[in-house]
């Protein structure tokens, strides 16, 4: 008897630049430091659904942190990716939480457009990533130092629907970045933690849907152990067992057809014929 399939719950990888930005999130999500990673400080929740990496400031650090975490979590490719950090904007009030709708880089022509999901209620804005803090603020664009390379790197590992950036306004025309006191980061983050948690939950839900789409079909391992399949046949086995699962067939196909089949090919043929004979019930 096979165990029931795991219930997909999704996962999220959060990338922040600074320890001061990470602290309120670590506390809110009750994350624990993973001790054996030296390249980047890395934290995770007890259920391993939420991961947080501290990249360090700037675009290259952000890209490197994404690559590092993606490498570490290769076995979970359906994770959402979220860049959380501070940004400047000419007019937005300090502490405003903003969702990126378009992410551009001051030196690159290609833009990234995070998908606007229905559930999100946050105000949104274009974010432009720059090399260093700016003296002037452009019209209606948030300035940060990580989002562009975060997105460009994350999209190598995840579908675009699962990649987002949210920024908290830390400086504006009246309070320029030179006045920014990192020790007061908690003051910016604390009022936003509820919204961030809610957004994180939505991304976990999307991640879980994608995880569900890619679950290994039931009986795959035992079938693969029983016969030696060519590469093409192995693809067929997976496809047939997905269909077997969709039909909610309870019995193992090995029990039904494994004993009589003289070869992997015969077994596959039996499976295919079985599926072709079943009539849709609606």
């Amino acid at each position, binding site marked *: 008897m096979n165990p029931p399939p795991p219930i997909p719950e999704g996962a999220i990888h959060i990338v922040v630049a600074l320890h001061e930005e990470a602290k309120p999130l670590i506390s809110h999500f009750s994350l624990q430091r993973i001790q054996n990673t030296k390249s980047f400080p890395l934290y995770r929740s007890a259920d391993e659904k939420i991961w947080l990496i501290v990249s360090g400031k700037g675009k290259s650090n952000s890209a490197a942190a994404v690559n590092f975490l993606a490498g570490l979590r290769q076995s979970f490719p359906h994770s959402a990716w979220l860049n959380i950090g501070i940004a400047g904007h000419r007019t937005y009030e300090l502490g405003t939480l903003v969702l990126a*709708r*378009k992410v551009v880089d001051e030196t690159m022509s290609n*833009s990234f*457009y995070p*998908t*606007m*999901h*229905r559930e999100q209620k946050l105000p*949104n804005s274009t974010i432009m990533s720059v090399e260093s803090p700016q003296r002037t603020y452009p019209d209606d664009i948030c300035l940060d130092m990580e989002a562009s390379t975060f997105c460009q790197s994350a*999209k190598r590992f*995840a*579908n*675009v*629907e*699962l990649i987002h950036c949210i920024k908290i306004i830390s400086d504006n025309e009246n309070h320029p970045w030179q006045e920014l006191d990192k020790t007061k980061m908690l003051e910016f983050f604390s009022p936003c933690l509820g919204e961030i948690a809610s957004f994180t939950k939505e991304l976990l839900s*999307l991640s879980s*849907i*994608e995880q*569900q*789409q890619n*679950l290994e*079909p039931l009986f795959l391992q035992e079938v693969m152990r029983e016969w030696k399949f060519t590469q093409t046949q192995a693809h067929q086995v997976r*496809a047939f067992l*997905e*269909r*077997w*699962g*969709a*039909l909610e067939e309870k019995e193992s196909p090995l029990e039904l057809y494994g004993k009589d089949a003289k070869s992997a090919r015969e077994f596959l043929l039996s499976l*295919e014929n079985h*599926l*072709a*004979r*079943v*009539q*849709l*019930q*609606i």
Partner: protein
Amino acid sequence: MIETIYIEDNIQKHEECAAIIDRLRPKNIIPINHYGEIFNRKKQNFRLQKRNPALILAEKKNKFVLPAPSGYGVDSGENYYFSHMLNCLYDCRYCFLQGMYSSAHYLLFVNYNDFMRDIENTIAAKNNTAMTFFTGYDCDSLALEDVTHFAERFLPFFAKYPEHLFELRTKSINIKHLLAHPPIKNVIVAFSLNPEPVAKALEHKAPNAAQRLAAMQKLANHGWSIGLRFDPLIDHLGFEDNYGGYIQQIKNTLPADSVHSVSIGPVRFPSSMYNAIVKLYPEEKLLACGLEKRDKLISYSAQRERALVDFVRKQLEDWLDSEKFFTCMPEAA
């Protein structure tokens, strides 16, 4: 409810865009350089996007009118189609659009006049050959009418070419504009039909079978020609009872002379498209049973296909002339 509109920079001031924004008043308006930045990008999850598609407003540059795919026409003459929009408001589990495009966003080409010009050129090039032009291949022709005003704009154009047929294919009951317009003899309003159990199980977000029948009745009473499109037929336990019952309702409701044509075709997928759709919805029973691979097609067995088509045809033969029947058996691409 469309919350986000992406607009190509070069058509920001196009009058159709302004009108659409005014109708929708979306939460987000996001400028883009080219629709491909959103619609054609790699690593999209169609299923996740389908939860809340955005509308992309773009300008089509070429290939406005194309030869209709095999099995799509309703006569043996010249069949063409044009798509002012890609993707559909509805979420039918058998729909090839799921496997065709990587994006689920609605892509609307707002340069309607260029479509009309190309249709005129196509007509002129064929020198009086009777032609049929289809809409509703890459989208539903009427489902987003309140936003696009597609029918409103194109009906007067179709009326200018009475020697050619124009088909609006739809599952929508959004027919108020057609009812406000005098019927046009060379325009067919063709409804994709399946009995209610099939519609309920597989045609998510689409009007139910009874609503479609009521819409057809209103249009027929108003004088419009109706197309009955049993395409795709979905085999299932109770096929004969369900299709037989629904067809009887149609016969009881519509005057036979309002029916322009009937097309009948079983569900078929090119195998690459089938694989893409299964990847999106591995739990979908429709895709799991009764199907087999034949060359590059995933379909019911040839024998079963024939039985399904023959059954539906037989239910209608005593009601409609035989020249009104067409069988849709598209070949694999």
